[in-house]
């Protein structure tokens, strides 16, 4: 059996204030997959993400990345192989220039300045931001900052790229540009989103989470067309959107 890129088994977690967010999550993602993680607010999506690179430690169950269990002694390797793009690019971009920010990850991995330079240029090129390298992040537009945030993670060449609400606050053109960039990457991807058309456009597979457990896992068009399942989990498609009709036109 091939080792999955990401596997969580029976993952449970309660916050220090006693609020339990995860009640046994099982998720398995194979190499090269693009998976959408759907679910209403408060379903535990963000909590799950924070487990994937060991920011949070499971109360019970386990997480492993590329067969390596997420544990304190493995953290350095895990963080190099799981790239998380957070919701607010202002949280992610903290260095004085775009270049320095993208270089932050590779330098932490102990790479030499020369190797870092190669990685930074490749990552900025992948998101079409190479001419902004010397600019300070706060002088960029929101969409550009989101793209730089993706580059900061790409520069670490992660095994799996995790995006938390990649389309939030983006204008339609910025949203489409980001989709084009993501589609070009051959990295395994987990996209957490409320933007269901986006999930359908980018991810052949979707998992649906609610109340701290996985409630569905299957091809995205099927999940989005299951009216009962959708209604039971507070998911709604935009007005006039028919996933079956769109699904026929999708190139996987």
């Amino acid at each position, binding site marked *: 059996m091939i080792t999955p890129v990401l596997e969580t088994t029976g993952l449970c977690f309660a916050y220090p204030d006693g609020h339990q967010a995860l009640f046994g999550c099982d998720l398995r993602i194979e190499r090269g997959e693009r998976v959408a993680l759907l679910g209403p607010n408060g379903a535990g999506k963000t909590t799950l993400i924070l487990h994937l690179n060991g*920011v949070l430690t499971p109360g019970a169950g386990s997480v492993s990345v590329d067969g390596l269990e997420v544990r304190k002694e493995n953290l350095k390797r895990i963080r190099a192989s799981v790239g998380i793009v957070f919701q607010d690019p202002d949280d992610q971009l*903290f260095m004085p220039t775009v270049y320095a920010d993208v270089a932050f990850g590779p330098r932490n991995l102990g790479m030499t300045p020369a190797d*870092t330079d190669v990685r930074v240029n490749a990552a900025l090129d992948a998101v079409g931001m190479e001419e902004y390298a*010397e600019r300070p992040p706060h002088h960029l537009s929101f969409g550009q900052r989101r793209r730089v945030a993706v580059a900061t993670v790409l520069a670490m060449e992660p095994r799996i790229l995790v995006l938390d609400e990649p389309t939030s606050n983006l204008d339609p053109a910025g949203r489409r540009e980001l989709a084009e960039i993501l589609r070009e990457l051959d990295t395994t991807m987990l996209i957490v989103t409320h933007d269901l058309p986006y999930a359908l456009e980018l991810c052949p597979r979707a998992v649906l989470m609610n109340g701290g457990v996985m409630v569905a896992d299957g091809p995205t068009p099927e999940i989005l067309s299951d009216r009962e399942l959708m209604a039971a989990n507070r998911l709604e498609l935009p007005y006039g959107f028919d996933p079956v009709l769109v699904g026929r036109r999708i190139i996987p």
Partner: protein
Amino acid sequence: MLAVVATPREAFWAYAAYAALLVGAARLGRVPIGFLSRRLVLEAPFLLFALFLPLVGGGERIEVGGIPLAIEGLWAAWNIVAKATLGLWATLIVAATTPIAEILHGLEHLRMPRVITAIAGFMIRYTDVITGEMQRMKIAREARGYDPRFLWQARALTATAGTLFIRSYERGERVYLAMLSRGFTGSLPLTAHNAAVPRQWAMALLLPAAALVVNLSSWAAL
């Protein structure tokens, strides 16, 4: 700047020479003189203090327009005004011609502790974010008819300040999480080095060297 501070206050011509040097530097760096003059407002508190000196100073006095002014105080005031203005000008020219990232980078090369440059970097990076947040909160307050006229209405302002503090604190936590996620282990990596070549050193030392010459000749002339 040290050269300016160490110049005897009686050497008026030396101050004129310093001012000329700075104007030259500003010209070279294409910094508009108007920009520099407006920024001099920063100096206002020191000027106020300088204004008081002739009034309260002891010793010999002269009458100017019926007000007895202490000569010692006048000298001190002139000293403060001239040196503060020149110092501020020099700082402003550096700030206006050098991107912040490069100033921080330069300080690192000059062996400034990493912790300090890192804090300064974060401060500059997030000032915009936090003032933006403050601005939005102000608009939101006003949009709901907030128009404080009496002291007890200041409650909303203190609440805003408190909320802003907590939000910034939480943002700090999120930033830290994002740093951890990219393998942060407690020290910021130095970014790519471009060590200054001798020519750049020579260019950089030109202005201080000229100032030093002025300084030495002002002492010699005493």
